[in-house]
Protein backbone atom coordinates (compact mmCIF):
# COMPACT_ATOMS: atom_id res chain seq x y z
CA UNK A 1 0.00 0.00 0.00
CA UNK A 2 2.91 2.30 0.74
CA UNK A 3 5.97 1.83 -1.44
CA UNK A 4 9.04 3.97 -1.03
CA UNK A 5 12.12 3.61 -3.19
CA UNK A 6 15.41 5.44 -2.73
CA UNK A 7 13.72 8.53 -1.36
CA UNK A 8 16.07 11.48 -1.00
CA UNK A 9 15.29 14.90 0.43
CA UNK A 10 17.62 17.84 0.74
CA UNK A 11 16.84 21.17 2.37
CA UNK A 12 19.50 23.23 0.66
CA UNK A 13 22.75 21.71 1.93
CA UNK A 14 21.14 19.65 4.65
CA UNK A 15 20.26 16.09 3.67
CA UNK A 16 17.19 15.08 5.66
CA UNK A 17 16.56 11.67 4.11
CA UNK A 18 19.31 9.62 2.51
CA UNK A 19 17.81 7.09 0.11
CA UNK A 20 15.02 5.53 2.12
CA UNK A 21 13.25 2.37 0.83
CA UNK A 22 10.48 0.40 2.48
CA UNK A 23 7.10 -1.24 1.85
CA UNK A 24 4.01 -1.39 3.99
CA UNK A 25 1.40 -4.08 3.27
CA UNK A 26 -2.31 -3.43 3.08
CA UNK A 27 -4.28 -3.59 6.32
CA UNK A 28 -1.31 -3.29 8.67
CA UNK A 29 -0.25 -0.72 11.23
CA UNK A 30 3.38 0.20 10.77
CA UNK A 31 5.49 2.44 12.89
CA UNK A 32 8.07 4.86 11.61
CA UNK A 33 10.51 4.83 14.48
CA UNK A 34 13.50 7.01 15.13
CA UNK A 35 14.95 9.63 17.46
CA UNK A 36 14.15 13.33 16.97
CA UNK A 37 15.44 14.81 13.71
CA UNK A 38 15.66 11.35 12.13
CA UNK A 39 13.56 12.44 9.14
CA UNK A 40 10.20 11.01 10.21
CA UNK A 41 8.16 14.15 9.62
CA UNK A 42 9.91 14.85 6.33
CA UNK A 43 9.15 11.32 5.12
CA UNK A 44 5.51 11.69 6.04
CA UNK A 45 5.25 15.11 4.43
CA UNK A 46 6.58 13.65 1.20
CA UNK A 47 4.17 10.71 1.35
CA UNK A 48 1.20 13.06 1.78
CA UNK A 49 2.19 15.33 -1.09
CA UNK A 50 2.99 18.30 1.14
CA UNK A 51 6.67 18.37 0.22
CA UNK A 52 8.29 17.28 -3.02
CA UNK A 53 11.24 14.87 -2.71
CA UNK A 54 14.62 15.69 -4.22
CA UNK A 55 14.93 12.23 -5.75
CA UNK A 56 13.44 8.74 -5.62
CA UNK A 57 9.99 7.28 -5.98
CA UNK A 58 7.06 6.82 -3.65
CA UNK A 59 3.53 5.59 -4.11
CA UNK A 60 0.69 5.45 -1.64
CA UNK A 61 -2.54 3.51 -2.27
CA UNK A 62 -1.38 2.91 -5.82
CA UNK A 63 -0.92 6.58 -6.64
CA UNK A 64 2.43 8.09 -7.45
CA UNK A 65 3.11 10.76 -4.82
CA UNK A 66 4.59 13.18 -7.34
CA UNK A 67 2.57 12.57 -10.49
CA UNK A 68 -0.88 11.84 -9.09
CA UNK A 69 -0.86 14.13 -6.07
CA UNK A 70 -4.49 15.17 -6.35
CA UNK A 71 -5.87 11.62 -6.58
CA UNK A 72 -3.55 10.65 -3.74
CA UNK A 73 -4.79 13.44 -1.48
CA UNK A 74 -8.37 12.25 -1.96
CA UNK A 75 -7.62 8.72 -0.75
CA UNK A 76 -5.39 9.34 2.26
CA UNK A 77 -5.83 10.82 5.69
CA UNK A 78 -3.06 12.75 7.41
CA UNK A 79 -2.49 13.95 10.94
CA UNK A 80 0.44 16.40 10.98
CA UNK A 81 2.63 16.64 14.08
CA UNK A 82 1.32 20.13 14.88
CA UNK A 83 -2.45 19.79 14.92
CA UNK A 84 -3.87 21.81 12.02
CA UNK A 85 -6.84 23.18 13.95
CA UNK A 86 -8.58 26.54 13.67
CA UNK A 87 -9.19 27.57 17.31
CA UNK A 88 -12.05 29.93 16.45
CA UNK A 89 -14.15 27.20 14.82
CA UNK A 90 -16.39 24.72 16.58
CA UNK A 91 -15.51 21.04 16.40
CA UNK A 92 -18.46 20.39 14.11
CA UNK A 93 -17.89 23.29 11.73
CA UNK A 94 -14.19 22.46 11.50
CA UNK A 95 -14.90 18.85 10.54
CA UNK A 96 -17.53 20.04 8.11
CA UNK A 97 -14.96 22.36 6.50
CA UNK A 98 -12.43 19.53 6.21
CA UNK A 99 -15.10 17.30 4.64
CA UNK A 100 -15.76 20.06 2.14
CA UNK A 101 -12.15 20.56 1.08
CA UNK A 102 -11.63 16.78 0.93
CA UNK A 103 -14.44 16.88 -1.62
CA UNK A 104 -17.05 14.82 0.15
CA UNK A 105 -20.27 15.24 -1.88
CA UNK A 106 -22.65 17.70 -0.12
CA UNK A 107 -25.34 15.05 0.29
CA UNK A 108 -23.01 12.79 2.27
CA UNK A 109 -21.15 15.46 4.22
CA UNK A 110 -23.33 15.48 7.30
CA UNK A 111 -23.19 11.70 7.47
CA UNK A 112 -19.39 11.70 7.11
CA UNK A 113 -18.97 14.28 9.87
CA UNK A 114 -21.36 12.45 12.23
CA UNK A 115 -19.50 9.22 11.61
CA UNK A 116 -16.06 10.57 12.56
CA UNK A 117 -17.53 12.35 15.59
CA UNK A 118 -18.87 8.98 16.67
CA UNK A 119 -15.68 6.95 16.01
CA UNK A 120 -13.37 9.55 17.54
CA UNK A 121 -15.52 10.00 20.64
CA UNK A 122 -16.20 13.70 20.16
CA UNK A 123 -19.95 13.72 20.87
CA UNK A 124 -19.77 15.78 24.06
CA UNK A 125 -17.64 18.55 22.53
CA UNK A 126 -19.13 18.74 19.04
CA UNK A 127 -20.59 22.22 19.51
CA UNK A 128 -17.67 23.73 21.43
CA UNK A 129 -14.99 26.04 20.10
CA UNK A 130 -11.75 24.17 19.45
CA UNK A 131 -9.78 26.67 21.55
CA UNK A 132 -11.86 25.72 24.61
CA UNK A 133 -11.44 21.94 24.53
CA UNK A 134 -8.72 19.92 26.27
CA UNK A 135 -5.52 18.72 24.66
CA UNK A 136 -6.80 15.14 24.52
CA UNK A 137 -9.94 16.20 22.66
CA UNK A 138 -7.90 18.34 20.29
CA UNK A 139 -5.86 15.26 19.43
CA UNK A 140 -9.11 13.41 18.75
CA UNK A 141 -10.30 16.22 16.49
CA UNK A 142 -6.98 15.90 14.66
CA UNK A 143 -7.54 12.19 14.15
CA UNK A 144 -11.18 12.77 13.23
CA UNK A 145 -10.23 15.20 10.45
CA UNK A 146 -7.83 12.62 9.00
CA UNK A 147 -10.64 10.06 8.87
CA UNK A 148 -13.27 12.21 7.25
CA UNK A 149 -12.82 10.93 3.69
CA UNK A 150 -12.77 7.30 4.90
CA UNK A 151 -9.17 6.95 3.72
CA UNK A 152 -7.53 3.70 2.67
CA UNK A 153 -4.22 4.87 4.02
CA UNK A 154 -3.82 6.81 7.23
CA UNK A 155 -0.61 8.67 8.02
CA UNK A 156 -0.27 9.84 11.61
CA UNK A 157 2.70 11.94 12.71
CA UNK A 158 3.34 11.47 16.45
CA UNK A 159 -0.32 10.83 17.31
CA UNK A 160 0.26 10.55 21.06
CA UNK A 161 2.78 13.35 21.64
CA UNK A 162 1.97 15.75 24.47
CA UNK A 163 -0.75 13.60 26.02
CA UNK A 164 -0.97 12.25 29.56
CA UNK A 165 -0.67 8.46 30.08
CA UNK A 166 -4.41 7.88 30.29
CA UNK A 167 -5.00 9.81 27.08
CA UNK A 168 -2.17 7.94 25.36
CA UNK A 169 -3.85 4.64 26.13
CA UNK A 170 -7.17 5.96 24.79
CA UNK A 171 -5.63 7.23 21.56
CA UNK A 172 -3.80 3.92 21.08
CA UNK A 173 -7.08 2.07 21.48
CA UNK A 174 -8.66 4.41 18.97
CA UNK A 175 -5.88 3.85 16.43
CA UNK A 176 -6.10 0.07 16.82
CA UNK A 177 -9.85 0.21 16.29
CA UNK A 178 -9.28 2.02 12.99
CA UNK A 179 -7.25 -0.79 11.50
CA UNK A 180 -9.64 -3.09 9.65
CA UNK A 181 -9.17 -2.52 5.94
CA UNK A 182 -6.96 0.50 6.46
CA UNK A 183 -3.22 0.74 6.21
CA UNK A 184 -1.77 2.95 8.92
CA UNK A 185 1.69 4.45 9.13
CA UNK A 186 2.40 6.23 12.39
CA UNK A 187 5.59 7.88 13.51
CA UNK A 188 6.94 7.82 17.02
CA UNK A 189 10.16 8.13 18.94
CA UNK A 190 8.92 5.90 21.72
CA UNK A 191 9.69 2.22 21.31
CA UNK A 192 6.96 1.05 23.65
CA UNK A 193 4.41 2.79 21.50
CA UNK A 194 5.47 0.79 18.50
CA UNK A 195 5.52 -2.58 20.22
CA UNK A 196 2.03 -1.99 21.54
CA UNK A 197 0.24 -0.71 18.47
CA UNK A 198 2.19 -1.73 15.40
CA UNK A 199 2.50 -4.88 13.34
CA UNK A 200 5.80 -3.81 11.87
CA UNK A 201 8.25 -0.95 11.79
CA UNK A 202 10.61 1.11 9.74
CA UNK A 203 13.48 2.31 11.87
CA UNK A 204 15.41 5.34 10.70
CA UNK A 205 18.19 7.46 12.11
CA UNK A 206 19.60 10.69 10.67
CA UNK A 207 17.84 10.01 7.40
CA UNK A 208 19.22 6.48 7.00
CA UNK A 209 17.23 3.28 7.04
CA UNK A 210 18.33 1.14 10.00
CA UNK A 211 15.90 -1.76 9.71
CA UNK A 212 12.43 -2.56 8.51
CA UNK A 213 10.10 -5.53 8.80
CA UNK A 214 7.36 -7.05 10.90
CA UNK A 215 7.81 -7.06 14.66
CA UNK A 216 8.60 -10.78 14.61
CA UNK A 217 11.26 -10.30 11.95
CA UNK A 218 12.78 -7.39 13.80
CA UNK A 219 12.92 -9.31 17.08
CA UNK A 220 14.54 -12.27 15.33
CA UNK A 221 17.11 -10.05 13.71
CA UNK A 222 17.82 -8.35 17.00
CA UNK A 223 18.36 -11.71 18.67
CA UNK A 224 20.82 -12.75 15.98
CA UNK A 225 22.62 -9.45 16.32
CA UNK A 226 22.88 -9.76 20.08
CA UNK A 227 24.08 -13.37 19.87
CA UNK A 228 26.85 -12.27 17.55
CA UNK A 229 28.02 -9.33 19.65
CA UNK A 230 27.67 -10.71 23.17
CA UNK A 231 29.53 -13.82 24.38
CA UNK A 232 27.10 -14.95 27.08
CA UNK A 233 23.51 -15.47 25.96
CA UNK A 234 22.07 -14.54 29.34
CA UNK A 235 23.51 -11.03 29.26
CA UNK A 236 22.27 -10.69 25.68
CA UNK A 237 18.77 -11.52 26.74
CA UNK A 238 18.97 -9.02 29.54
CA UNK A 239 20.12 -6.30 27.22
CA UNK A 240 17.31 -7.11 24.85
CA UNK A 241 14.59 -6.85 27.44
CA UNK A 242 15.93 -3.64 28.89
CA UNK A 243 16.35 -2.22 25.41
CA UNK A 244 12.82 -3.11 24.41
CA UNK A 245 11.21 -1.46 27.37
CA UNK A 246 13.18 1.75 27.43
CA UNK A 247 12.10 4.49 25.06
CA UNK A 248 13.86 4.95 21.89
CA UNK A 249 16.97 6.44 20.71
CA UNK A 250 19.65 4.42 22.46
CA UNK A 251 18.11 1.22 21.22
CA UNK A 252 17.90 2.48 17.68
CA UNK A 253 21.55 3.33 17.73
CA UNK A 254 22.41 -0.32 18.30
CA UNK A 255 21.60 -0.88 14.68
CA UNK A 256 24.51 1.16 13.40
Amino acid at each position, binding site marked *: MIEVENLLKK*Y*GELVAIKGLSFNVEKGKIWGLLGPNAAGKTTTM*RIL*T*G*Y*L*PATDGRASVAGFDVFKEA*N*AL*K*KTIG*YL*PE*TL*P*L*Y*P*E*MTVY*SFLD*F*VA*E*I*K*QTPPSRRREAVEKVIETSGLKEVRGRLIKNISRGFKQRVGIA*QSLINDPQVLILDEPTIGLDPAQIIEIRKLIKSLKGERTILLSTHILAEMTQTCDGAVIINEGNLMASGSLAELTLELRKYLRKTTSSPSSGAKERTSGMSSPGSSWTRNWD
Partner: protein
Amino acid sequence: MKNIWAICKKEVKTYFTSPIAYVLITVFLVLVGFFFYSLVWWFNNYSFQAARDPAYLQQLNINQMVFSPLFHNISIILLLTIPLLTMRLFAEEKKRQTDELLYTSPISVGQIIIGKYAASLFVLLVMLLLTGILSIFTFAYGNPEFVPILNGYLGLFLMGAAFIAVGIFFSSLTENQVVAAMLTFGALLLFWILNWAAGSASGMWQDVLNYLSFFQHFDDLTRGILDTTDIVYYASFSFFGLFLTHSVIQSRRWR
Protein backbone atom coordinates in the same frame (compact mmCIF):
# COMPACT_ATOMS: atom_id res chain seq x y z
CA MET B 1 -15.36 26.21 -8.03
CA LYS B 2 -16.67 24.22 -5.06
CA ASN B 3 -13.21 24.31 -3.49
CA ILE B 4 -12.95 28.08 -3.87
CA TRP B 5 -16.39 28.41 -2.29
CA ALA B 6 -15.34 26.20 0.66
CA ILE B 7 -12.25 28.32 1.38
CA CYS B 8 -14.13 31.59 0.87
CA LYS B 9 -16.94 30.54 3.21
CA LYS B 10 -14.50 29.53 5.92
CA GLU B 11 -12.59 32.82 5.67
CA VAL B 12 -15.74 34.93 5.77
CA LYS B 13 -16.90 32.97 8.81
CA THR B 14 -13.54 33.57 10.48
CA TYR B 15 -13.77 37.30 9.79
CA PHE B 16 -17.25 37.49 11.26
CA THR B 17 -16.87 35.11 14.21
CA SER B 18 -13.81 37.00 15.42
CA PRO B 19 -13.83 40.74 16.22
CA ILE B 20 -11.71 41.50 13.12
CA ALA B 21 -14.51 42.32 10.66
CA TYR B 22 -16.60 44.20 13.22
CA VAL B 23 -13.75 46.37 14.44
CA LEU B 24 -12.49 47.16 10.94
CA ILE B 25 -15.95 47.91 9.58
CA THR B 26 -17.00 50.01 12.60
CA VAL B 27 -13.89 52.17 12.68
CA PHE B 28 -14.06 52.55 8.92
CA LEU B 29 -17.69 53.68 9.08
CA VAL B 30 -17.10 56.09 11.98
CA LEU B 31 -14.29 57.78 10.05
CA VAL B 32 -16.20 57.88 6.78
CA GLY B 33 -19.24 59.23 8.62
CA PHE B 34 -17.17 61.99 10.18
CA PHE B 35 -15.71 63.02 6.84
CA PHE B 36 -19.15 62.96 5.27
CA TYR B 37 -20.59 65.09 8.04
CA SER B 38 -17.82 67.67 7.72
CA LEU B 39 -18.17 67.85 3.94
CA VAL B 40 -21.93 68.24 4.10
CA TRP B 41 -21.60 70.92 6.77
CA TRP B 42 -19.15 72.80 4.58
CA PHE B 43 -21.42 72.39 1.54
CA ASN B 44 -24.31 73.72 3.58
CA ASN B 45 -22.39 76.85 4.53
CA TYR B 46 -21.43 77.31 0.94
CA SER B 47 -25.09 77.05 -0.11
CA PHE B 48 -26.09 79.82 2.31
CA GLN B 49 -23.44 82.08 0.83
CA ALA B 50 -24.63 81.18 -2.64
CA ALA B 51 -28.15 82.26 -1.68
CA ARG B 52 -26.77 85.76 -1.02
CA ASP B 53 -24.28 85.91 -3.87
CA PRO B 54 -25.31 84.35 -7.22
CA ALA B 55 -21.66 84.13 -8.31
CA TYR B 56 -21.23 81.18 -5.94
CA LEU B 57 -24.28 79.46 -7.35
CA GLN B 58 -22.44 78.48 -10.52
CA GLN B 59 -20.01 76.32 -8.59
CA LEU B 60 -22.58 74.69 -6.37
CA ASN B 61 -22.40 70.99 -7.23
CA ILE B 62 -22.95 68.32 -4.61
CA ASN B 63 -21.16 65.65 -6.62
CA GLN B 64 -18.02 67.69 -6.87
CA MET B 65 -18.15 69.30 -3.46
CA VAL B 66 -19.21 66.35 -1.32
CA PHE B 67 -18.72 63.07 -3.16
CA SER B 68 -15.48 63.79 -4.92
CA PRO B 69 -13.57 64.65 -1.71
CA LEU B 70 -15.45 61.90 0.15
CA PHE B 71 -14.21 59.24 -2.26
CA HIS B 72 -10.74 60.65 -1.85
CA ASN B 73 -10.99 60.29 1.91
CA ILE B 74 -12.43 56.79 1.70
CA SER B 75 -9.54 55.70 -0.49
CA ILE B 76 -7.04 56.92 2.10
CA ILE B 77 -8.89 55.08 4.87
CA LEU B 78 -8.83 51.95 2.71
CA LEU B 79 -5.10 52.36 2.30
CA LEU B 80 -4.79 52.09 6.07
CA THR B 81 -7.50 49.46 6.64
CA ILE B 82 -6.84 46.88 3.96
CA PRO B 83 -3.38 45.83 5.20
CA LEU B 84 -5.11 44.96 8.49
CA LEU B 85 -7.79 43.01 6.68
CA THR B 86 -5.40 40.89 4.62
CA MET B 87 -2.46 40.42 6.99
CA ARG B 88 -3.76 37.22 8.56
CA LEU B 89 -4.77 35.39 5.39
CA PHE B 90 -1.60 33.38 4.81
CA ALA B 91 0.64 34.48 7.70
CA GLU B 92 -1.73 33.04 10.28
CA GLU B 93 -2.06 29.70 8.47
CA LYS B 94 1.69 29.41 8.38
CA LYS B 95 2.17 30.36 12.02
CA ARG B 96 -0.46 27.88 13.24
CA GLN B 97 0.73 25.33 10.67
CA THR B 98 -2.81 24.84 9.45
CA ASP B 99 -1.45 25.28 5.93
CA GLU B 100 -0.35 21.67 6.13
CA LEU B 101 -4.02 20.67 6.16
CA LEU B 102 -4.81 22.84 3.15
CA TYR B 103 -1.86 21.69 1.07
CA THR B 104 -2.50 18.00 1.78
CA SER B 105 -6.13 18.33 0.68
CA PRO B 106 -7.18 17.74 -2.93
CA ILE B 107 -7.37 21.47 -3.60
CA SER B 108 -4.98 23.60 -5.60
CA VAL B 109 -2.93 26.54 -4.35
CA GLY B 110 -4.68 28.74 -6.90
CA GLN B 111 -8.07 27.79 -5.48
CA ILE B 112 -6.90 28.59 -1.94
CA ILE B 113 -5.64 32.02 -3.03
CA ILE B 114 -8.79 32.90 -4.95
CA GLY B 115 -10.99 31.71 -2.09
CA LYS B 116 -9.19 33.94 0.37
CA TYR B 117 -9.19 36.84 -2.08
CA ALA B 118 -12.94 36.48 -2.58
CA ALA B 119 -13.53 36.48 1.19
CA SER B 120 -11.67 39.79 1.60
CA LEU B 121 -13.54 41.24 -1.37
CA PHE B 122 -16.75 40.36 0.42
CA VAL B 123 -15.70 42.29 3.54
CA LEU B 124 -14.68 45.24 1.34
CA LEU B 125 -18.06 45.10 -0.37
CA VAL B 126 -19.86 45.17 2.99
CA MET B 127 -17.79 48.17 4.06
CA LEU B 128 -18.57 50.12 0.89
CA LEU B 129 -22.25 49.18 0.78
CA LEU B 130 -22.73 50.40 4.34
CA THR B 131 -21.29 53.80 3.44
CA GLY B 132 -23.93 53.88 0.69
CA ILE B 133 -26.45 54.73 3.41
CA LEU B 134 -24.82 58.19 3.57
CA SER B 135 -25.58 58.91 -0.07
CA ILE B 136 -29.25 58.09 0.56
CA PHE B 137 -29.36 61.22 2.76
CA THR B 138 -28.03 63.38 -0.04
CA PHE B 139 -30.69 62.01 -2.37
CA ALA B 140 -33.36 62.74 0.22
CA TYR B 141 -32.31 66.36 0.79
CA GLY B 142 -30.55 67.26 -2.45
CA ASN B 143 -30.33 66.19 -6.05
CA PRO B 144 -26.93 64.68 -6.83
CA GLU B 145 -26.30 62.81 -10.06
CA PHE B 146 -26.48 59.07 -9.58
CA VAL B 147 -24.11 57.74 -12.26
CA PRO B 148 -20.94 59.54 -11.04
CA ILE B 149 -21.59 58.23 -7.52
CA LEU B 150 -21.99 54.68 -8.80
CA ASN B 151 -18.80 55.03 -10.85
CA GLY B 152 -16.99 56.35 -7.82
CA TYR B 153 -18.04 53.33 -5.78
CA LEU B 154 -17.09 50.93 -8.54
CA GLY B 155 -13.70 52.60 -8.73
CA LEU B 156 -13.25 52.33 -4.96
CA PHE B 157 -14.12 48.65 -5.11
CA LEU B 158 -11.65 47.98 -7.91
CA MET B 159 -8.95 49.89 -6.12
CA GLY B 160 -9.68 48.07 -2.86
CA ALA B 161 -9.46 44.78 -4.77
CA ALA B 162 -6.00 45.73 -6.02
CA PHE B 163 -4.98 46.69 -2.45
CA ILE B 164 -6.19 43.28 -1.22
CA ALA B 165 -4.13 41.44 -3.84
CA VAL B 166 -1.03 43.31 -2.67
CA GLY B 167 -1.92 42.49 0.95
CA ILE B 168 -2.32 38.79 0.19
CA PHE B 169 1.05 38.76 -1.51
CA PHE B 170 2.83 40.20 1.53
CA SER B 171 0.90 37.90 3.84
CA SER B 172 2.26 34.91 1.93
CA LEU B 173 5.84 36.11 2.45
CA THR B 174 5.92 35.96 6.23
CA GLU B 175 4.38 34.22 9.20
CA ASN B 176 4.28 37.45 11.17
CA GLN B 177 1.07 39.43 10.70
CA VAL B 178 2.50 42.80 11.75
CA VAL B 179 5.29 42.43 9.22
CA ALA B 180 2.75 41.58 6.51
CA ALA B 181 0.59 44.61 7.37
CA MET B 182 3.50 47.06 7.47
CA LEU B 183 4.97 45.84 4.17
CA THR B 184 1.56 46.08 2.53
CA PHE B 185 1.01 49.59 3.82
CA GLY B 186 4.47 50.68 2.69
CA ALA B 187 4.04 49.24 -0.78
CA LEU B 188 0.57 50.73 -1.24
CA LEU B 189 1.65 54.18 -0.12
CA LEU B 190 4.66 54.03 -2.40
CA PHE B 191 2.49 53.12 -5.37
CA TRP B 192 0.10 55.86 -4.37
CA ILE B 193 2.69 58.60 -4.67
CA LEU B 194 4.80 57.10 -7.43
CA ASN B 195 3.78 59.94 -9.73
CA TRP B 196 5.81 62.34 -7.57
CA ALA B 197 8.92 60.70 -8.91
CA ALA B 198 7.56 61.16 -12.43
CA GLY B 199 8.29 64.86 -12.10
CA SER B 200 12.02 64.26 -11.99
CA ALA B 201 12.00 61.51 -14.63
CA SER B 202 11.82 62.13 -18.31
CA GLY B 203 10.46 60.56 -21.49
CA MET B 204 9.15 57.05 -21.27
CA TRP B 205 9.89 56.71 -17.56
CA GLN B 206 7.65 59.60 -16.79
CA ASP B 207 4.74 57.86 -18.51
CA VAL B 208 5.53 54.56 -16.85
CA LEU B 209 5.68 56.05 -13.36
CA ASN B 210 2.52 58.00 -13.96
CA TYR B 211 0.76 54.92 -15.22
CA LEU B 212 1.84 52.81 -12.25
CA SER B 213 0.77 55.36 -9.66
CA PHE B 214 -2.54 54.72 -7.89
CA PHE B 215 -3.07 58.43 -7.59
CA GLN B 216 -3.22 59.07 -11.33
CA HIS B 217 -5.94 56.50 -11.83
CA PHE B 218 -7.73 57.54 -8.73
CA ASP B 219 -8.20 61.15 -9.77
CA ASP B 220 -10.59 60.13 -12.53
CA LEU B 221 -12.75 58.06 -10.33
CA THR B 222 -13.22 60.67 -7.62
CA ARG B 223 -14.76 62.79 -10.34
CA GLY B 224 -17.03 59.91 -11.17
CA ILE B 225 -15.34 59.01 -14.43
CA LEU B 226 -14.48 55.37 -14.92
CA ASP B 227 -12.18 54.84 -17.87
CA THR B 228 -11.38 51.40 -19.31
CA THR B 229 -7.66 52.10 -18.77
CA ASP B 230 -8.38 52.46 -15.05
CA ILE B 231 -10.32 49.21 -15.00
CA VAL B 232 -7.51 47.45 -16.85
CA TYR B 233 -4.97 48.98 -14.48
CA TYR B 234 -6.70 47.79 -11.31
CA ALA B 235 -7.54 44.38 -12.77
CA SER B 236 -3.96 43.78 -13.89
CA PHE B 237 -2.70 44.97 -10.51
CA SER B 238 -4.90 42.41 -8.76
CA PHE B 239 -3.92 39.67 -11.16
CA PHE B 240 -0.23 40.40 -10.74
CA GLY B 241 -0.50 40.39 -6.93
CA LEU B 242 -2.28 37.03 -6.89
CA PHE B 243 0.09 35.58 -9.45
CA LEU B 244 3.11 36.55 -7.32
CA THR B 245 1.43 34.99 -4.27
CA HIS B 246 1.02 31.75 -6.21
CA SER B 247 4.69 31.79 -7.20
CA VAL B 248 5.82 32.47 -3.62
CA ILE B 249 3.80 29.59 -2.16
CA GLN B 250 4.82 27.14 -4.86
CA SER B 251 8.50 28.00 -4.71
CA ARG B 252 8.55 27.77 -0.93
CA ARG B 253 7.34 24.18 -1.06
CA TRP B 254 9.96 23.21 -3.63
CA ARG B 255 12.88 24.72 -1.76
